[in-house]
C-alpha cells in the first residue's frame, strides 16, 4: 500500500483573506494609476516613449485583452500632453513641375490660415484682375499700344500704297488677300479691254512695276508674324505690369503675415509670378471652381483652372493638444501612407495635388502611431513600406500601383515629408518572436519590447491592489461597486483563470467582462452593490452557456457510448484525463487508456502516434516512457517487449504529455498482470527517472472526472491522481470541494511513478533493496520478472531460428504468446 494521503479540502482552493480588505465596497477605493502586475511592461513603455532615437519603436507583446492598448494609451496621453504640437503639413502646387507637389511644414494651426489666405487671394484676384483690365487706365494704355502697333504695321503698307499710286498702280484688298492693278487718272483700275489696247511696251512696263511692288508686298507680308509676335509681347508686358500692380497690392498683407515662414514666402513668390504670367485665367473663372475640369489640375493652364492656387491641408493640428496619438485599426497601405485619388473625366483618370489624401503616419507625424502587428502584417506591402519609411525617416505618398509598376500612367510624385513618429506595435508573443527570428530589420526598428504579464503573485498587498483595479474598471465602466466578498470572488476567479492558486490573472479584458456581467446580475436583482453571489452567478452562467459540449460528453459516458469505468478493476486499462477547448471555456474529461504487451524488440507503440494523430510532445512522452521502462526494469538485460498503447474512442489529434503517467500505469499493469482501479483517473507527466511533472488545466481535468463520477454516483472511492507540483494550482469548484469534504471524492498528489502506481493498483510498487531486487510480489517485481521472461523467450526463440537471426523477436511476428 502507500502512505500518500489525499488532499484536504483546504488545499483545493485558496480563498482571499477578507480581513486584508479595509473597505466595505470598492466605491471607497481610489483609482489605480497603473495596471497591477505590469511593472516590467510599464517601465518598458516609459523608456520606449521617452527615448527619442531612431529605432526605439515599441512592440507591446502579450495576450489579447491583457490591457496593452489601455496602458499604452494612458502613457502616451500623459507623455503627449507634455510635448509640443507638431507642425501642420500642406501640399501646394509646384509651379516649376506640376507633377511634383511641394510639401510645406507650418506651425500648428497655420496650415488652415494659408489655405484660407490663398482662397481669399484667389477670390480677390478674380475680382481685382478683371477690374484692372477693365479700368480706364488699362484700356487707354492698351489702346495706345495697339494704335502704335497698328501705325507701325500700317506704315509699310501706306508707304507701299503711296509708292504704287505714284506709279499709277493701286494696292487693292481682295476677299482673300491683296493685289496690284494699274489705275487710270480717276484712280480706278484700268478695265482689261483698255489695258489690252495699250502698246506692248507699256503693258510690259506696268507688269514689271507690279512685279517689283509685289516683291515688296511679299516682304512686308512676311514681316506680319514678327509684328504679331512683337505685338503680343508688348501687350503681354502691359498685362503683366497691370497684373503685377494688382497682385502685389493684394499680396502685401499676406506676405507680411507670413514673413516668418521663408518657405511660404518662396511659395508666394511663385504664386505671384504664375498669376502675372497667367492673368487671363482670372478673366472668366466663374465656372472653374468646383467643376470637374477645374479639379483636373495638371496642365490646367490651358483650361484656365485656378485649382493650382489651392492649398491641400494634409495635416491640420490646429485642434491637437500636445503630440498626436493615432490608433489605426485598419493599417492598410493606403490608410498608413495616404493615397492619391483620381477623378474620372470622359473615361480618363486625372489627379492633382489637391487629391493627395493623408494616411495615419501623416496624422501621427510628430507623435505616436499605434497599430496591431498582425493587422499590419496581413495587409499587402504595408509592413515592408512601414519599415522602409521608418528607416528613411521621410514619408512619401505613393500608390501601390506605382510602387509595383502596375500603373505606368503619369501621376504625381509628391515631395516627401520629414517623419518623426514613434510606432507602437501591439501583438502576440509568438509574432514578436517570429519577427525577431525571421525579419532582420525588425530588431533594428523595434528595439523596445514591452512584455505584458498574464498574471501576478497573490498576497494580501496584491489583493488590495487588485481591488483598486476592480474599483477603477468599475468606475470607468459605470458599474456597481463590489462588496468585499464579491471582490474576493473576482480575485479567486482570476486565480482560477491564471491556473494557479498563488497567482492571479491580470487579463484586463477578462476582469472587465466578469465585472460587467456581475453588474448585470446585481442590477437584475435590484442590488446596489455587486455581491459574491452575483460573481458566482456570472461564473456559473458562463459555464452553463459554454456547457453544451461537456454535457453531451458526460451524457455519452453515462449512456455507455463512451466507455469509461468508474469502479472495479481492470488489467492494462486506466482512466486518463484530457482537456478540450470549447470556445473560451476549457473542460476536462476522462479517456480510457489501454495497453497490451507481447514479445517484441523493445518498442512501445502508441497507436495515436502511428496513425499520426499525436503531436510531437505526445510522441516525446511515449519515448520517454520507453526510456523509463528500460532503465528502471531492464538495466542489464534486453528489453524484448512489444507493447501497444491507445487512447480509446478518440477520433481527433492528441497533444501534450499529461497522460504519460497514466500510459505508464496501464503498461505496467499489463506487464505485471495487476489490475488497476477504475475509480481513479490519473493525470501527470513523467520523466525517465520516474519523477512526476506538473501538467496544465489541472482544475478542469479533476472537475471533468468528478462530473463523470457524480453522474454515476459518488462512492467515496473515486478520485484523481495529480502531480504533487500541481497542488498549488488548484482552484476547484465548490461542489468538488464539498464532495471532498464529505469524503465522497478525493484528490491525491503523487510525486513519483511508484507513488502513483501504489495508488492505482492498491499494492506497493516496491523499491529495490541493497541487492537491487524489488520486493517479492510487488508490482515492480512482477513487471521486471515479466520483462525477464520476455527476454528469455526472445533468446530461446533466437537460438531456435539460428544465430544472428532475430526474426523471432520481430514485432511483426504472429506469435501471441507475449500478449497479456
Amino acid at each position: 500500500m502507500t502512505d500518500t494521503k489525499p488532499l484536504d479540502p483546504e488545499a483545493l482552493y485558496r480563498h482571499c483573506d477578507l480581513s486584508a480588505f479595509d473597505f466595505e465596497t470598492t466605491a471607497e477605493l481610489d483609482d489605480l494609476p497603473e495596471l497591477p502586475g505590469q511593472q516590467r511592461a510599464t517601465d518598458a513603455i516609459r523608456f520606449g516613449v521617452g527615448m527619442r532615437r531612431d529605432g526605439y519603436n515599441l512592440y507591446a507583446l502579450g495576450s489579447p485583452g491583457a490591457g496593452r492598448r489601455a496602458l499604452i494609451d494612458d502613457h502616451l496621453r500623459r507623455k503627449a500632453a507634455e510635448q509640443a504640437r507638431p507642425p501642420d503639413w500642406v501640399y501646394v502646387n509646384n509651379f516649376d513641375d506640376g507633377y511634383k507637389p511641394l510639401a510645406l511644414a507650418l506651425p500648428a494651426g497655420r496650415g488652415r490660415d494659408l489655405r484660407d489666405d490663398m482662397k481669399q487671394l484667389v477670390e480677390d484676384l478674380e475680382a481685382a484682375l478683371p477690374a484692372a483690365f477693365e479700368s480706364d487706365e488699362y484700356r487707354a494704355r492698351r489702346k495706345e499700344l495697339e494704335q502704335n502697333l497698328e501705325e507701325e504695321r500700317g506704315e509699310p503698307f501706306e508707304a507701299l500704297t503711296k509708292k504704287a499710286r505714284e506709279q499709277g498702280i493701286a494696292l487693292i484688298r481682295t476677299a482673300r488677300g491683296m493685289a496690284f492693278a494699274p489705275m487710270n487718272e480717276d484712280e480706278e483700275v484700268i478695265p482689261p479691254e483698255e489695258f489690252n489696247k495699250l502698246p506692248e511696251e507699256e503693258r510690259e512696263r506696268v507688269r514689271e512695276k507690279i512685279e517689283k511692288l509685289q516683291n515688296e508686298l511679299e516682304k512686308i507680308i512676311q514681316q506680319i508674324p514678327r509684328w504679331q509676335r512683337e505685338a503680343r509681347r508688348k501687350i503681354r508686358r502691359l498685362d503683366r505690369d497691370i497684373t503685377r500692380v494688382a497682385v502685389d497690392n493684394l499680396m502685401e498683407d499676406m506676405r507680411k503675415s507670413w514673413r516668418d515662414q521663408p518657405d511660404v514666402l518662396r511659395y508666394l513668390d511663385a504664386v505671384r509670378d504664375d498669376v502675372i504670367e497667367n492673368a487671363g485665367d482670372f478673366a472668366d473663372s466663374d465656372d472653374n471652381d468646383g467643376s470637374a475640369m477645374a479639379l483636373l489640375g495638371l496642365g490646367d493652364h490651358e483650361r484656365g483652372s485656378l485649382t493650382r492656387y489651392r492649398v491641400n491641408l494634409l495635416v491640420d493640428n490646429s485642434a491637437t493638444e500636445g503630440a498626436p496619438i493615432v490608433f489605426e485599426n485598419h493599417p492598410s497601405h493606403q490608410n498608413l501612407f495616404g493615397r492619391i485619388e483620381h477623378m474620372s473625366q470622359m473615361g480618363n483618370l486625372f489627379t492633382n495635388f489637391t487629391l493627395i489624401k493623408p494616411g495615419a503616419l501623416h496624422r501621427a507625424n510628430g507623435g505616436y502611431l499605434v497599430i496591431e502587428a498582425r493587422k499590419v502584417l496581413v495587409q499587402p506591402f504595408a509592413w515592408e513600406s512601414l519599415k522602409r519609411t521608418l528607416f528613411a525617416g521621410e514619408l512619401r505618398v505613393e500608390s501601390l500601383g506605382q510602387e509595383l509598376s502596375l500603373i505606368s500612367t503619369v501621376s504625381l510624385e509628391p515631395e516627401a515629408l520629414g517623419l518623426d513618429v514613434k510606432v507602437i506595435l501591439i501583438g502576440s508573443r509568438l509574432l514578436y518572436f517570429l519577427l525577431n527570428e525571421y525579419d532582420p530589420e525588425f530588431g533594428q526598428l523595434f528595439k523596445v519590447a514591452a512584455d505584458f504579464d498574464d498574471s501576478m503573485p497573490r498576497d494580501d498587498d496584491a489583493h488590495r491592489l487588485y481591488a483598486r483595479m476592480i474599483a477603477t474598471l468599475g468606475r470607468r465602466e459605470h458599474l456597481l461597486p463590489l462588496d468585499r466578498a464579491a471582490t474576493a470572488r473576482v480575485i479567486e476567479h482570476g486565480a482560477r483563470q491564471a491556473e494557479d492558486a498563488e497567482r492571479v490573472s491580470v487579463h484586463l479584458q477578462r476582469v472587465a467582462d466578469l465585472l460587467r456581467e456581475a453588474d448585470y446580475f446585481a442590477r437584475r436583482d435590484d442590488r446596489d452593490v455587486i455581491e459574491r453571489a452575483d460573481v458566482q452567478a456570472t461564473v456559473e452562467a458562463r459555464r452553463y452557456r459554454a456547457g453544451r459540449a461537456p454535457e453531451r460528453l458526460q451524457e455519452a459516458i453515462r449512456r455507455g457510448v463512451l466507455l469509461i469505468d468508474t469502479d472495479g478493476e481492470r488489467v492494462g486499462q486506466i482512466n486518463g484525463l484530457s482537456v478540450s477547448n470549447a470556445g473560451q471555456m476549457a473542460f476536462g474529461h476522462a479517456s480510457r487508456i489501454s495497453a497490451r504487451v507481447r514479445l517484441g524488440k523493445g518498442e512501445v507503440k502508441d497507436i495515436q502516434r502511428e496513425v499520426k494523430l499525436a503531436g510531437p510532445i505526445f510522441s516525446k512522452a511515449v519515448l520517454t516512457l520507453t526510456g523509463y521502462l528500460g532503465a528502471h526494469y531492464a538495466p542489464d538485460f534486453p528489453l524484448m517487449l512489444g507493447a501497444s498503447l491507445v487512447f480509446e474512442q478518440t477520433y481527433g489529434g492528441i497533444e501534450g504529455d499529461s497522460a504519460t503517467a497514466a500510459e505508464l500505469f496501464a503498461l505496467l499493469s499489463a506487464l505485471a498482470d495487476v489490475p488497476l482501479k477504475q475509480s481513479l483517473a490519473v493525470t501527470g507527466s513523467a520523466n525517465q527517472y520516474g519523477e512526476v511533472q506538473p501538467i496544465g488545466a489541472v482544475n478542469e481535468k479533476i472537475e471533468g472526472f468528478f462530473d463523470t463520477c457524480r453522474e454515476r454516483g459518488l462512492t467515496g472511492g473515486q478520485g484523481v491522481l495529480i502531480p504533487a507540483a500541481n497542488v498549488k494550482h488548484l482552484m476547484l469548484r465548490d461542489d468538488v470541494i464539498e464532495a471532498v469534504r464529505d469524503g465522497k471524492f478525493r484528490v491525491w498528489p503523487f510525486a513519483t511513478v511508484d507513488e502513483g502506481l501504489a495508488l492505482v493498483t492498491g499494492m506497493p510498487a516496491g523499491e529495490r533493496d541493497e541487492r537491487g531486487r524489488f520486493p517479492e510480489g510487488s508490482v515492480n517485481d512482477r513487471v521486471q520478472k515479466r520483462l525477464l521472461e520476455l527476454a528469455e523467450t526472445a533468446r530461446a526463440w533466437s537460438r531456435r531460428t539460428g544465430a544472428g537471426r532475430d526474426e523471432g523477436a520481430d514485432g511483426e511476428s504472429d506469435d501471441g504468446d507475449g500478449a497479456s
Partner: protein
Amino acid sequence: MSERIRSILVAVDSSAGGLAALQQAAELARRIDAELSGLFIEDEDLVRLAGLPFARELPAGGGEWRPLSTEVMERDLARLARDLERELEVLAGRLEIPWRFRRRRGRVATELLAACSECELVAVGTAGMRGGPSRLGSTARRLLAEATSSVMLIAPGAVLRAASFAVVFDAGQAAEGALARALELTPPDRSLDVLIAVDDRAAADTLKARARELAGTRALRFRTLREKSGSALLDSLADLAPLMLVLGETDWIEPPMLERIVARLDGGLLRVRTRD
C-alpha cells in the same frame, strides 16, 4: 428737328470690320425700331483687276501668289453676296427686325454715297478695303466728307450695346440735330454725356440750358471742353468709357484731327447731317 431714323443702310462685306459693322448696325436697328438695309457692293475695281492678264493676289496670311481670273472673281462675288445675304437674314431673324438686301456693282464709295438718299443713316466699318490696315478707309473718309445722310463709322470690336453715347454740343442747328440723334440712340434709362464745345466759358451755361431744354426729361451729364478745338475734344475722350461719339457738322475739326478722334473711339463716330 430731324425725323427719326427709319432705315439704316449698312455696307456689308466679308472683312472682319464689315461683319462687325453689320452686327452693330443690326443691334442699333433693333433698338430704334428701324429697318436694316444691307448693301453689298461688288467692287468694280476687283472685277477689272481679275480681268487683267497678270492679275494675281497674295493671301493675307502669307503664302504663294494665286492667279486671278474674271470667272473666279465673278463666282467668288456671287457666293459672297449669297453668304452675306444669308448672314443678314439670320441676324435680322434673330433680332426680329425688318431687313432687305441689295447687290450693286460699282465703286464702293460712289455707290454708298448714292445710297445716302435712301436712308437716314449709313453705317460702315472704319477699316478700309483698299490698301493696308490704315486707321480710316478711303470709303469712310469720302463718306465723312460727302455723305448727305448721317454716317456711322463703327470701330472694329465695338459693342454698341455696352457703349455709352456722347454728343459734341456747340452752338448751332447742327449741334441740336446731333443732340437729337444722340438722344434717339441712347437707351432711355441711360444718361447721355454732353461735351460742351465753346470758347467762351460763360456761354457754356447757356448751351447747357439749351441742351437740357432739348433733352426734356432725359438725363444728361455735362463736360466742358477746355476750348473749342479738335485737340481739346481728343483729350477729353481719354477718361471716357467705351464711346460712340455723336458729332454734328462742324467746321472747327480738321479732317486729319477727325481721323485721330475716330481712331481713339472704342465705339465709333456718328456724323449727323441735318437735312433741310
